[in-house]
C-alpha cells in the first residue's frame, strides 16, 4: 500500500513507543514515591506482593495476547482455564494424593486438552466470526465452566498445599512466602519458553507472521487453522499453570476465574493487545498498582479502582501503553 518516503526525515514509530515508555517511567516514579511515603518496609512489601499477583496476571495476559494476535479473537473464558487448573490440582494433589509435580502436569494437560478441543469443536468451525459472536460464545463457555465447577466442587474455597513449605523469609523487612519464588521462577520460565517458541520454531515464527499478515504465514507453510489451534493450546496451558501456582496463596473456588480473567485481559490491554512483552509488563504493573491501591484505599474498592484505571487507559490510549496503532482497514 505505502511507498517509501523520499527526502524528508520524520519521527519514526519508535518515538511513539519511547513516549509510552516515558509515561510508564513516570508512573513507576510516582509509585516509588508513594511507596517511600509509606513506611519503607510496607512499600517494599507492596511491591513484592504486587509482583507475585502481577506474574499471574502476566501469564494469563500472555494467553489473551497469543490468541488475539493469531486469530483476532478475545477468549473471555481465559480465566476459567486458571480456575479449572487450580481445581484439578486440588483434586489430584490434596484429594487423590498424587505427588505435586505429577498433579501439576496432569492438571495442565487436561486443561490444555479442554482448550484445544474447544477451539477445534466450536471456534474453528465458525470460520470468520464477528466480534459479538465470539464474545458471546466465549462468555457462554466461561459461564458453563464455572457452573460445572460449582456442580462438581461446590462453592467452598479450597486450599492447595504450597509447593515447598510455608515459612516466609524476610528480605529488607518485607516477608516473602516460598510460593512467590515458585511463581517468579515459573513466570520467567514461561516467558523464556514463549520467546524461544516464537523466535526459533517454525510454527512460532509462522504465528508471528500471521499476526502481521495471514497470507504471508500461509506462504511459510503455517495455515491459519494450525495457528489458531496452537494459540488456544498455549493459552490454555498458560492459564492452567497460572491458576495452579497462585492457588496456594489465594486459594481456589469455582468463581476465581472471573476476576483472574478480567485482570488478565486488563493487563493484556494495558500492555497492548497482541504484543506479548507488553502483556508481561502490563500484568506486572497492574499487580503492583492494584496492591498499592489496596493498601491506600479501602480494600473493598480495590477492584473498582483497578477497572477505573483500565478504562482511563483505554480511553487515552486505546491501543494500550506499548501497543502499536492499528492502521485503518
Amino acid at each position: 500500500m505505502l511507498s517509501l518516503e523520499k527526502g524528508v526525515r520524520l519521527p519514526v514509530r519508535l518515538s511513539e513507543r519511547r513516549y509510552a515508555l516515558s509515561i510508564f517511567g513516570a508512573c513507576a516514579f510516582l509509585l516509588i514515591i508513594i511507596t517511600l511515603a509509606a513506611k519503607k518496609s510496607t512499600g517494599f512489601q507492596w511491591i513484592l506482593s504486587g509482583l507475585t499477583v502481577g506474574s499471574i496476571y502476566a501469564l494469563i495476559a500472555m494467553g489473551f495476547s497469543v490468541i488475539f494476535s493469531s486469530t483476532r479473537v478475545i477468549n473471555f473464558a481465559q480465566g476459567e482455564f486458571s480456575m479449572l487448573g487450580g481445581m484439578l490440582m486440588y483434586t489430584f494433589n490434596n484429594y487423590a494424593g498424587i505427588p505435586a509435580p505429577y498433579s501439576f502436569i496432569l492438571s495442565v494437560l487436561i486443561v490444555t486438552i479442554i482448550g484445544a478441543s474447544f477451539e477445534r469443536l466450536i471456534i474453528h468451525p465458525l470460520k470468520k466470526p464477528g466480534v459479538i459472536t465470539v464474545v458471546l460464545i466465549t462468555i457462554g463457555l466461561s459461564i458453563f465452566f464455572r457452573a460445572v465447577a460449582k456442580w462438581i466442587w461446590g462453592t467452598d474455597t479450597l486450599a492447595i498445599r504450597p509447593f515447598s513449605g510455608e515459612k516466609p523469609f524476610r528480605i529488607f523487612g518485607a516477608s516473602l512466602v516460598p510460593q512467590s519464588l515458585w511463581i517468579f521462577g515459573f513466570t520467567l520460565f514461561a516467558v523464556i519458553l514463549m520467546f524461544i517458541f516464537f523466535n526459533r520454531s517454525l510454527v512460532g515464527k509462522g504465528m508471528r507472521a500471521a499476526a502481521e499478515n495471514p497470507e504471508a504465514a500461509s506462504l511459510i507453510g503455517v495455515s491459519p487453522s494450525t495457528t489458531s489451534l496452537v494459540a488456544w493450546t498455549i493459552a490454555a496451558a498458560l492459564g492452567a499453570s497460572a491458576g495452579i501456582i497462585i492457588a496456594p496463596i489465594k486459594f481456589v473456588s469455582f468463581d476465581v476465574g472471573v476476576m483472574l480473567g478480567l485482570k488478565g485481559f486488563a493487563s493484556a490491554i494495558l500492555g497492548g493487545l497482541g504484543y506479548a512483552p507488553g502483556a508481561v509488563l502490563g500484568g506486572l504493573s497492574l499487580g503492583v498498582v492494584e496492591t498499592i491501591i489496596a493498601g491506600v484505599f479501602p480494600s473493598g474498592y480495590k477492584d473498582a479502582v483497578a477497572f477505573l484505571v483500565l478504562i482511563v487507559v483505554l480511553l487515552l490510549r486505546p491501543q494500550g501503553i506499548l501497543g502499536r496503532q492499528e492502521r485503518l482497514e
Partner: protein
Amino acid sequence: MKSFFERKKSDIGKTENTYKTFAFGSLLILSVPLWARLIPGNVIHMDIVNVMVLSGIYSCAVIGLNMLIGYAGQISLGHAVFFGIGAYSVAILSTRYSWFPTWLGVIIGAIVSFAISWVVGRPVLKLKGHYLAMATLGLGEIGFIFFREATGITKGTVGITAIPSLSIFGIEFDSNFKLFYVVWPIALLLMLFSMNLIRSRFGRALRALHSSEIAAEVAGVNTSKYKTIVFVMSAVFTAIGGGLFAVFQRYVNPESFHFSVSILFLTMVVVGGLGNVWGAIIGSIIMTFLPSIISALPYWFPFMPKSLTNFGNYTLVLYGLLLIVFMIFMPKGIAYALEVGYSSALRGMKRIRDRISALKYEKRK
C-alpha cells in the same frame, strides 16, 4: 409515486403487518393473567403471573439492549448497572422518605441513569469491539462494587428491605395481578417506540453504522452521536425495568445487579434474536420461564429426578449452554425461527387453498 403503491413487497404493507402482529402479540400477552388463573397452582407448580411480571420487567431492559447490540452493533457487558441504578433509586428514596411516591422513584432512576449513561457513553463508545466489551464490563464491575461497598447509601450486602409497593395516585399495585398491568403496558410501549424508531431515519442510521461506521459517516451520519443516543436510550429503558424490579421484589441487594445479570440480559437478547424487536420480549419470557419450568419438571413427570427442583442454583449452566448453542446454530434467535415458521405456514395454507379451488374448478368442469 405509483411504484410506491404498486409494489407487492412494499414497505407500507410490511408496516401494516408489523403493527397487526404487534396488536395481536400484545393482546396475547395482556390476556395471560386472565386465563392463567384458571390453571390451579398446585398442578403446574409455578406462579405464571409472577414469572410473567418478572419477564416483563426484564423485557424493558432487553428491548433497550437489543437496540444497542442487535441494531447498532455496540456490545455492552455492564447493563446490570443501569438496572441497579433504577432499582436503588426507588429503594433508597421510598424507604428513606415515607412520603416519596414510588412511581416518582422509577422516573428519577431513569433520569439518573440518563445522566450517568450520557456522561460515560460518549467517551466509552469511541471504543470498538473487544475494547468496548471490556470497558462496559469494567463499568458494570465498578457499579457492582459501589452497590456493595457504599453501605451508607445502599446498605451493602444486607440490602434494602421493606420497599413499599408501587402506588400511582392512590392506587396500590400490591398484587402480582395488578402489577402485571403496569409492567407489561410499559414494556409494550417501549417496544412500540423502538419499533417505530428502527423503521425511521434514526433506525436506518443505526443499522448503517452497524454495517460500516466509515460508510455511515460518509453518508452523513454522526456516528458517535447516534451511538451515544442509543446507549443512553438502552440505559434508560433498563433503569425503568430496574425501578419496576424494586417494587416487584420489595427488596434489593447487590447480587441482583451482578455481572451475571448483564449476561442474563445478553442471553435473552441472543435467544430471542439479535436485531429483532420481538426477540427481546420472546427471549426474556423464555429465559425467565425456563428455570421455573425445569424446577417444576419433577412434579409434572414422576420419572424426572427430584434434584431438579433445586435447579435454581444451576441456571448458569443453562445460560452458558444456550449462549453457545444459539450463537452457533441459531444466531438469529427464536423470533426469526418463528417468523420463518409463520410465513411458511401462511404459504402452506395458501397452497392448500389454491389446491382446493383448483379441485373445485375441475369438478365444475
